[in-house]
């Protein structure tokens, strides 16, 4: 009896959630599947038909020097921006956690960049980093630190660091918020306990603050790592991957295959590559860092 009852209940539950499941499938998963499946076809934007080519797109992609170069730049960009955000978040998180004057004002100010539309940030940074009339160059010149203006986004060597700093700046406040929230949840008694054990400021940081921040830092690294590896908009707005290919990361490279060469099949193969990389990354992360357990707050 109990079994049939349970079975009936199960059926009801399935029936009840079926509509939303189906909707999710149609809206989210089907387009993804479709996009991924394109990777196995020869599909041009100008022809309605498509032809099964198996792994030919993948083979082509892996043979491209540009693909590997873009992959390298993506890794640099991801590590750079994530590192920048962590450092930025840690610095301002710790600073704003101190009892400093104007703390509450600072706290609201720090979230601002996160609220700005990307297009605004792109334009503003192009403006302030402009070699001819950008305020940064003016300051550097007049203070005598440099004697020729730096072409931040236009120089082969300067472009990538500049774009990393811009992106890092935009998303750094997210890290500040997460880190600040975590810092405020640390039991102040732990610091007092550490001090009563003879620990000074540095030891308190290493033995109390850092272990408490570990999960938050890992979380930022994972979420932002995925996000930054996929980052397209800000780079496209500021440099379109240039100068030459100095800031051409994987998403930019794939975009160009799709909308400059109009080869959707090969572009899709590029998307699959990103997908696999991120899948591997997440797998390693979950396997070795066990975030669900780490995120548990235990004081």
């Amino acid at each position: 009896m109990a079994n049939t009852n349970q079975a009936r209940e199960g059926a009801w539950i399935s029936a009840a959630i079926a509509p939303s499941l189906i909707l999710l499938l149609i809206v989210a998963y089907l387009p993804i599947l479709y996009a991924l499946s394109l990777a196995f076809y020869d599909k041009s934007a100008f022809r309605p038909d498509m032809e099964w080519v198996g792994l030919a797109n993948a083979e082509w992609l892996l043979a491209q020097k540009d693909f590997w170069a873009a992959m390298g730049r993506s890794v640099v960009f991801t590590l750079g921006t994530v590192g920048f955000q962590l450092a930025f978040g840690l610095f301002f998180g710790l600073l704003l956690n101190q009892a400093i004057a104007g703390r509450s004002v600072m706290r609201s100010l720090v979230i601002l960049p996160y609220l700005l539309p990307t297009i605004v940030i792109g334009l503003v940074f192009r403006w302030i980093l402009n070699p001819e009339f950008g305020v940064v160059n003016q300051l550097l010149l007049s203070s005598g630190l440099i004697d020729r203006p730096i072409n931040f986004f236009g120089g082969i060597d300067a472009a990538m660091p500049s774009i990393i700093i811009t992106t890092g700046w935009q998303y750094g406040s997210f890290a500040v918020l997460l880190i600040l929230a975590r810092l405020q949840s640390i039991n102040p008694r732990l610091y007092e306990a550490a001090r009563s054990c003879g620990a000074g400021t540095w030891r308190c940081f290493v033995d109390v603050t850092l272990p408490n921040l570990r999960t938050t830092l890992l979380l930022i690294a994972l979420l932002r790592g995925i996000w930054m590896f996929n980052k397209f908009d800000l780079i496209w707005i500021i440099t379109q991957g240039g100068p030459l290919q100095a800031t051409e990361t994987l998403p930019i490279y794939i975009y160009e295959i799709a909308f400059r060469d109009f080869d959707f099949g090969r572009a899709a193969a590029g998307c699959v590559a990103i997908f696999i990389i991120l899948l591997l990354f997440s797998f390693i992360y979950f396997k070795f860092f066990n975030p669900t357990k780490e995120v548990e707050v235990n004081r």
Partner: protein
Amino acid sequence: MSVALKLDNVTKTFTQNGKTIAAVDDLSLDIQPGEFFTFVGASGCGKTTTLRMIAGLETVSSGKILFDDQDVTNVTTQKRGIGMVFQDIALFPFMSIRDNIGYPLKVAGMPKSQIAQKVEAAADLLSITDKLSMRPTQLSGGQQQRVAIGRAIVKEPKILLLDEPLSALDARLRTEMRTEILRLHRRINATIVYVTHDQVEAMTMSSRVAIMEAGRAAQVDTPRQVFRAPRYESVATFIGTPAMNVWDMQVTGKAGQPVLQGGGMTVALTREDAAALDGFRWVRMGVRPAALKIVPQDEADFSAVLHLREPLGFEDECHLETADGTDIKLVGRVPDTLVEGASLHIAVDRADYCIFHPDTGKALRHGLAPLTAA
């Protein structure tokens, strides 16, 4: 011998919402090496603040703190070389029990092998050897408490500060830990400064106690002396369960032959009492519930009606009402035949009562022995 810990006119004020309160008000005391010294008092009387100032976690507003005759008032916590157990335990959640206990030694830069040895010894002393590789959250409250104590003693500090270390434990565990802390005190030979709001803890464990009231020490004495010769009515009613009975009494009678009248009783004064009460019209009479006895009518000081009896096991706590409506309590062995509503004849133990100043609450006389000048 030098004084292990000296508080010299220590004051701590806090300002909140524009109001300044003195959490600790001009406190001075000397604690001898090896003492088990306890601060006890009601919530908010400044016990924790005092302990935190001794630890250096709180600055003093004025006054001085000396360890072994050395002024440490401006020395930071980490340099004071104390061991401390916090009320909320505060173990490091991300470290194993082993690392928690060994932490002060690690900070001090002791070699690993030596740390391991000392941690083992401390764990052994506190019987938590089998828990060393666990995390704090995997331990029960009592075990965590022991780890906290282990962390505080592993460096063999000369001064050990304990802030209500047993308050989180259930009654049975608390009794157990009380004994263990005492045993520990004997073994480690440190000066212990202990904070509690539990008078039983204070009375059973300490060599001396300070009864704190609104930032001041109302009395600093041995537990026995505090119980028998309280300096103030407030101290008398704070220490002892159930609380001491205190009621108003009028000083009357012929000149040279004064008597105390009140609470339905009339007591003739001894010559010394009479001298001490000269000039008073009213006083407060204090009698411990255990100093009241049920006696035959002809030996009684007064009679009262039994309202309620609460069995304490061996004895009963009896709620009585005297003829003039004063509520008093009596603790003792009472015949089972006595039922609620019965009328009883009560005598006061002449060797065990106090007389307090009607306004200041200061003790004027103790039945046991005349109080030496305050």
